[in-house]
């Protein structure tokens, strides 16, 4: 724990959390003025070269425009074929190893004794001055305790209770979509549905649900972390607002608990009522970290799979015909969408000791990036990996949820949301036509869409 985090914990009982975040922001601005703050990388887009023109050591897959420019596939194929464990010595995020084959990724993910998830799972470090702590970036045993405190919220038993609510909210969104007229699928469907889901999980004021989306977008998009576009002066105020809103929500749940009320099934109530997390509010960096994890984890991933599924069915129209002929394929298709999209490109680790992997020696302290997006297209593990096949055999055996102790906690919720979406779409629409090209997120981490125009054709009620 660094000095600043310790100071925040000590003062947390006296000073509102959002003031602390504001103070951290002012401190960074002051350091900036006197030239002491770490330099934030700046990313300006220019066309990237064809990968065949590059020397292998010059390939830099941390470039946040690789996804947007549609070149990630060829870049990663070359790494998988020629140097599956690859070292890039001078990226904007410092030196790092890329692990690009399915089996090697599985190895790294399983061996938390060799590879640490601390201090952060993105390629770059966190914005200076705010060392948020979250269990996705903690090693056992601390990780295990914190995860166990909240994982019940997305446990299948809890989801069964929530299924009808999710279906009702999905129907409401779909019933109000324009028909025979182009509109933006990302904003009207993907973002709206995930915002509703998050507000439900967090018991967050429903009419303010789009704030959750905004916070998630800001938190996942700082340039030093993922090569995104958010400025520090936008980042800190957003975090301060998260701190304020959720402190209020937390206090409210505490008051209900103290009044002897039965706890609700939302995340905050669960944490307030759990021995290991009931004092979390006195540890601001952990408090913010766990909230950020749940908000980002439930936002970008499902949202971009909701868009990605529509895009995939447009790229492979025969699969849409197959789906309409046999809607029982939906659950299998959901897994295939999650593989094909791989909404989060990677998770980062740090080697805890020297490790030999596929002929390379990774040194203790080196950053190691497991590129799920590449492993999910590895010809050695997956048959015709670039094709989208809704009745693919073994569709569940993909890397998108990660493996080992950090495996995605919300996987069943994500699958359920996507399954319900497709069940309800098929009941209403005959065609979902993508109009033109979608627009892509700038990031080396989030494989997302900012805009995708579609046109719906209603199903003939014969």
């Amino acid at each position, binding site marked *: 724990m660094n000095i600043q985090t310790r100071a925040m914990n000590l003062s947390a009982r006296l000073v509102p959390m959002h003031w602390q975040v504001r103070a951290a922001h002012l401190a960074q601005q002051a350091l900036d003025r006197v030239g002491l703050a770490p330099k934030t990388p700046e990313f300006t887009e220019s066309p990237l070269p064809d990968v065949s023109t590059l020397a292998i050591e010059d390939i830099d897959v941390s470039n946040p425009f690789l996804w947007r420019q549609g070149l990630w596939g060829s870049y990663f194929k070359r790494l998988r074929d020629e140097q599956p464990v690859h070292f890039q010595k001078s990226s904007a995020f410092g030196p790092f190893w890329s692990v690009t084959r399915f089996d090697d990724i599985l190895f790294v*993910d*399983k061996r938390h004794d060799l590879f640490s998830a601390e201090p952060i799972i993105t390629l770059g470090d966190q914005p200076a001055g705010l060392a948020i702590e979250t269990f996705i970036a903690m090693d056992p045993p601390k990780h295990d305790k914190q995860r166990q405190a909240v994982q019940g919220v997305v446990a*299948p*038993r809890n989801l069964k209770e929530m299924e009808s609510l999710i279906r009702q909210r999905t129907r409401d969104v779909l019933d109000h979509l324009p028909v025979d007229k182009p509109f933006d699928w990302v904003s009207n469907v993907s973002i709206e549905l995930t915002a509703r889901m998050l507000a439900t999980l967090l018991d967050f004021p429903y009419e303010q649900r789009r704030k959750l989306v905004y916070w998630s977008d800001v938190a996942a998009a700082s340039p030093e972390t993922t090569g995104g576009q958010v400025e520090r002066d936008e980042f800190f105020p957003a975090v301060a607002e998260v701190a304020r809103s959720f402190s209020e929500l937390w206090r409210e749940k505490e008051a209900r608990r103290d009044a002897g009320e039965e706890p609700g099934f939302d995340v905050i109530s669960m944490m307030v009522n759990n021995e290991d997390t009931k004092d979390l509010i006195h540890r601001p960096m952990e408090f913010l970290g766990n909230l950020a994890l749940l908000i980002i984890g439930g936002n970008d991933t499902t949202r971009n799979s909701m868009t990605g599924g529509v895009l995939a069915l447009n790229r492979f129209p025969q699969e849409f015909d197959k789906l309409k002929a046999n809607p029982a394929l939906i659950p299998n298709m959901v897994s295939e969408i999650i593989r094909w999209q791989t909404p989060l490109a990677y998770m980062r680790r740090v080697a805890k000791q020297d490790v030999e992997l596929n002929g390379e020696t990774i040194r203790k302290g080196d950053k190691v990036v497991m590129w799920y997006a590449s492993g999910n297209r590895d010809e050695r593990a997956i048959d015709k990996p670039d094709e989208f096949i809704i009745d693919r055999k073994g569709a569940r055996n993909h890397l998108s949820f990660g*493996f080992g102790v950090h495996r995605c906690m919300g996987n*069943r919720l994500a699958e359920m949301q996507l399954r319900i979406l497709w069940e309800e779409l098929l009941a209403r629409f005959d065609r979902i036509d993508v109009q033109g090209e979608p627009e892509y997120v700038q990031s080396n981490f989030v494989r997302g869409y900012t805009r995708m125009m579609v046109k719906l054709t209603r199903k003939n009620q014969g």
Partner: protein
Amino acid sequence: MGYMTFIEHDGTRHKVEIEADKSLMQHAADNMVPGIDADCGGECACGTCHVIVDEAWYAKTGKINSSEQQMLEMTPEGAPTSRLACQIEITDALDGLVVHLPEFQM
């Protein structure tokens, strides 16, 4: 060769013939027993082949290593005789084995 039985959460029983040198998970997969997802394909890395071994058989299914223990702790459906089916090697000594499937795989 002997037999073993998977019992689904709703009570449906599946009697499966034992084949040596295959894990319990593989037996379920090869015999289309529903309720075993095995997302990681038998690497002890996803926790989706969780079974609850019948108490009488638990001691005979072998030792649990630390990575299996860790994956089992991640499921809210855990029971004292929980195991991951991919980590149970089936031998003739398990002729008659009975395992229960949880309501959900996490």
